[in-house]
Each structure stands twice: as C-alpha cells, then as structure tokens.
C-alpha cells in the first residue's frame, strides 16, 4: 500500500468541498442567529412542519413518483424492444438515447418552452389544422413532461443492460418446458429484470425529487417544488438556517429511499416469490 499518497489530493479535495460543507449545513440547520447571537435549536425543523411548507414537500414527492412511474411504463417496453433480436446494432441505441444526453441539460429543458409556448411550435401546427390550442405550460403537466423527457434514458439504460444479460438459453429452456411468450415474460424475463428496474427507479426518482431547474423553467416563477424552495431560502430570503434544515430533510429522505432500493437489489430470490 505504498501508493497511498496518490489518494491524498483527492482526500484534501473531498474534505474541502464535501466534508466541510456537509458540516456547515449541519451547523446551519441546527442553529439560529438572532439578537442574542448564535444558539442551537430545532426551530428550523419545527418551522418546516407547518402545513404550507409540508405541502411543497408532498407535491415534490408526488410529482417525482408520478414521473418515475411514467418513465417505467414507457421505458420498460422500449428497453425490451431494444434488447430483442431485431435491434442487434448498438448504433440505434446510441442515436436514439445517448446522443441527446450529450446535449446540455438546460438547453434540452429550454427547448420544451419553445414547443409548449402559447405561440410555440406545437400550437402553431395545431392552429394550422384549425385544432384547439393546448395550454399546458406552467402547469404540473409541463413539469412532468420535462422530468420524463430528461430522465427517461436513465430508466431505459439500466433495464436494457439487465435484459441483455439474461441468457437466451433461459428463454429457450422456458419455451422448451411449455412456456408461451407471456409465460416466459412473466416468470423468467420480468423477475430477472427487477435489479435493472430498481436501478432505473433510483436514477429517475432522485433527480426528479430534487430538481429546481425543470420546475423553474417549465413551471414558471410561482411554481414551487422542494428544490426551488431550498434555493429561495438561500438566494432570495437569506435564511440559510431554514434552507439547511430542509436540505437535511431531503438528504435523509434520499438516503432512506436508497436503503429501500438496495434491499430489493440484494434479494435476488425475491423475484421467484412473486409467483
């Protein structure tokens, strides 16, 4: 282990940019500055428990869960199609999913504005055909649309990877034993793909629940999800204490969801118990 010194720069970096800020957040979350100076308190957390603030958290969770669900419903079939015999070229995969991901996240979200605006592209086409215009910008629908659009590849790719790894001989064996396509899917493919599904859910839910760019651009200035809320505390209201407290709550929630997900990942045999 005489190469340990190579890790020291990274260690320093980690300490400066991860460990110390984490402790700062902890500090701010549990303290308050008022006329008497700085004192330790749980007031910041109590403040968050007010219904008006909790509703923001609930809305964020709800939208994130819904977007994750939509990504799953759309993504799994796509992953299956890609993994099937007809799409042996990974070039198709690259063009459809990976290249768009090279584009800037902000730009991709902005482009939805031009699509969804009152006189945007979609409405221009609709009015050309004398169809009623759609007015979904700055609503929940637009935000969900933005989330699904941005995070769908993160659902497709893990599922695709796992599906590709399934030994084709297992499918043949299931067919040999009398399984038609539906049976093979239900009893072999689906249970074996669960680790990929869990991966995908994690990779979509986490950015979805903490996003503030998508909600700001597609939801508008008044639209508040938990990400926007935290940003507002720091940038506009200079209430670092409250912002830190909420951030801590989010961190704990995410850690809990990772914990739940990883339980499914280890429990490979759980798939068989489904039937």
């Amino acid at each position, binding site marked *: 282990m005489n190469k340990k010194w190579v890790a020291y720069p990274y260690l320093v970096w980690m300490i400066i940019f991860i460990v110390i800020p984490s402790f700062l957040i902890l500090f701010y979350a549990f303290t308050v500055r008022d006329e008497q100076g700085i004192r330790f308190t749980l007031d910041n957390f109590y403040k968050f428990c007010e219904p008006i603030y909790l509703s923001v958290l609930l809305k964020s969770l709800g939208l994130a869960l819904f977007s994750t669900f939509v990504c799953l419903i759309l993504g799994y079939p796509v992953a299956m199609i890609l993994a099937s015999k007809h799409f042996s070229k990974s070039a198709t995969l690259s063009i459809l999913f990976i290249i768009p991901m090279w584009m800037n996240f902000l730009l991709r979200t902005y482009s939805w504005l031009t699509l969804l605006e009152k006189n945007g592209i979609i409405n221009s086409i609709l009015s050309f055909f004398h169809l009623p215009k759609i007015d979904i910008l700055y609503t929940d629908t637009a935000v969900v649309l933005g989330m699904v659009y941005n995070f769908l590849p993160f659902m497709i790719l893990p599922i695709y990877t796992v599906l590709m790894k399934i*030994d084709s*001989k*297992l499918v*043949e*064996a*299931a*067919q*040999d*034993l*009398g*399984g*038609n396509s539906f*049976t093979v899917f239900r*009893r*072999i493919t689906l*249970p*074996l793909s669960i680790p990929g599904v869990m991966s995908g859910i994690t990779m979509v839910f986490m950015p979805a629940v903490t996003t503030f760019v998508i909600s700001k651009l597609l939801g508008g200035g008044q639209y508040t999800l938990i990400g926007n809320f935290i940003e507002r505390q720091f940038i506009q209201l200079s209430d670092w204490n409250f912002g830190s407290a909420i951030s801590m709550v989010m961190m704990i929630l995410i850690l809990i969801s990772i914990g739940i997900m990883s339980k499914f990942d280890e429990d*490979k*045999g759980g*798939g*068989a118990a489904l039937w």
Partner: protein
Amino acid sequence: MNESQPIILLKNICKKFGQTEVLNNLNLYVLKNEFVTLLGPSGCGKTTTLRIIGGFEKQDSGDIFFEGKKINDVPPYQRKVNTVFQKYALFPHMNVFENIAFGLKIKKMDKKEISKKVDEMLELVNLQGFHKRSVESLSGGQQQRVAIARALVNQPEVLLLDEPLGALDLKLRKEMQIELKNIHKRTGITFVYVTHDQEEALTMSDTIVVMNKGKIQQIGTPQMIYNEPKNAFVADFIGESNIIDGKMLKDYSVEFAGHVFECLDKGFEVNEDVDVVVRPEDIKLVSPEDGMITGIVKSVTFKGVHYEMLVEAKGITWTIHNTQMAEAGTTIGMSLNPNDIHIMKKTEKA
C-alpha cells in the same frame, strides 16, 4: 400410431447461417424408444439438427414430421419434446423444486400432484432432499441432474440432449453415461443425443449417426460403425485408425504397403484405388521373418491399457496398440487377419 412409423422424420433439411451451409439435404428418421446419437466434430451440424427438432431453429427448406404430422411451424412450447441444454440453463432465481416443477406448473397441474412428481424425479436422479437448494449452490454434476429431472418430469415423447456431459470430469461423465442409459431403459423415452465424444456415443447408443459438414456419413449400430466404417472420415473419427492408400486387385484381394493381402471386401473395380483401414489393436506383432510387413519401431508410449507404438514401414507410420511392447529401434514384423482389413472407396478425409 403405426409401430414402424418413425417418431421423428427429417426430410431434405437445409439450413444456412450467413454464407455457411450448415445442413445439406439432411434426411433422418428416429424410431420410438431408440437412443440415437448424432456424432461428429464441431461445426458438423449436429447441434443445429437437434435445435431444429426442438423448434429453436427453423430450417430454410425441408420438412420435419413428428408421429407422422408435419410440425414445421409448431413453436417449441407446443412440441412434445423436452431438451437438456449443454450448460443446463437452470433458472437462477428459482430453487431446485421450482426449476423442476416449472413445466408442470404451466400445465396447471394440481399442487399435490406436482409435489409427488418432483419427488419421484429427485429420486430418479439421486438428489433426494434437494428441494430447497438454490441453483448456485449445486456442483456441476448436481446441476446437470436437475436439468435432466426438469426435462424428464414432463414425460416428453422425445428427450433431446445437447452434449450434456461436456462440462463434467471424466469419472463423473462415465457415471452419468450409465445413469442416462438406465433412465432411457426405465422410461422408454426416445433419446436424441448430441456429442463429439465417440467413446460416449459408442457406450450409450442404439444407433449412431455420424455427421460431417452438414451431411450424414454413416448410420448404424455402434458395432457396425466401429467395425465397418463406410468411409475414411468415419474410420478416422471413430476409434483410432491406420488409413493407407491401397489398390484393389480383384475381389477379396488388396495390395498395400508392398504386400498383397487377402481381405473380405469385394465389389470394387479391378485395380481401383481405395482407402485401407486397419485398427491399431488389430495389428499383430510377430518376428520379422513371419511378418507380412516389416518395420522399425520409432516410439513406444505406455497408455495404461496398452502400449502405443509408432512403427515405420514402407514409408508409412503405423500406429499399433498392444499389451506387449517392442523397444524403439527394433525391427518387427506385422501381421493382419483378412477380417481386420477394411476397404473403402476413396473420399475426402475429415
């Protein structure tokens, strides 16, 4: 069903993979209760033939019949055939019981019935009590037996086996060969077995189908294939052989290695060039004066069961198997019985 009607009939089967012609007008039938082995080197088409019977590959042209009915378009899950795969293909997310019960559950069999049948199978393959074991925790031999049980429990008409013993060590392989043969006798199921191991084929089969480059070279009982190979390929592939250029002088008389031998074959043209096949164990060692051919021993190797000697005579290197040995460098005489000289038409070798 007519007693003499084959249970499986393949007619003019052709199959190409890309540019390669893997099966070339294959015609084959399998009788009920038979143990048929498709034997040949890698790439000869034996596995493809098996997969076509199982329904995992579709032939480019030709027909396949099962009990007299054409099944060209019948998918694998509707064929009364079950397969034991080369690498077992056990379902990793199910335990031993669930793996074996898979086919029965699909048939919607009663739970008690399933439990009973799985128990019977585990008895048959000597894995009593292994119900709850996970697939990963099993040894190669055990996994193999689960794979066999999983196929047999469905009581198929035909069992297809794709080189199932390839991954096992020698001793286990020989044990499993005997077990499989016993299962075949007990259940009366038709076995179609694929292997490249000629010893395995000779041990287990009622009928051997020797294949090369997508064509059938010879079909026969193990004794026939071994003692009367039809061409140089079969002679070379089965057992060890000395294959020498010879000339058929007339019926029952052949000349090779500078000597005229009496033999039992006839029907060739006068002075026709032929391949002469002599098994190493059929060459008798005699004193140089008594020998039909004399030669010098080049090397001697102890093989346990016999000595293997390479002898040079008349420009040909002969392989001789004998329980007695002659030292390297000595001159010996070789003698052959007419019975042990096999004549065949000249064809391309393997």
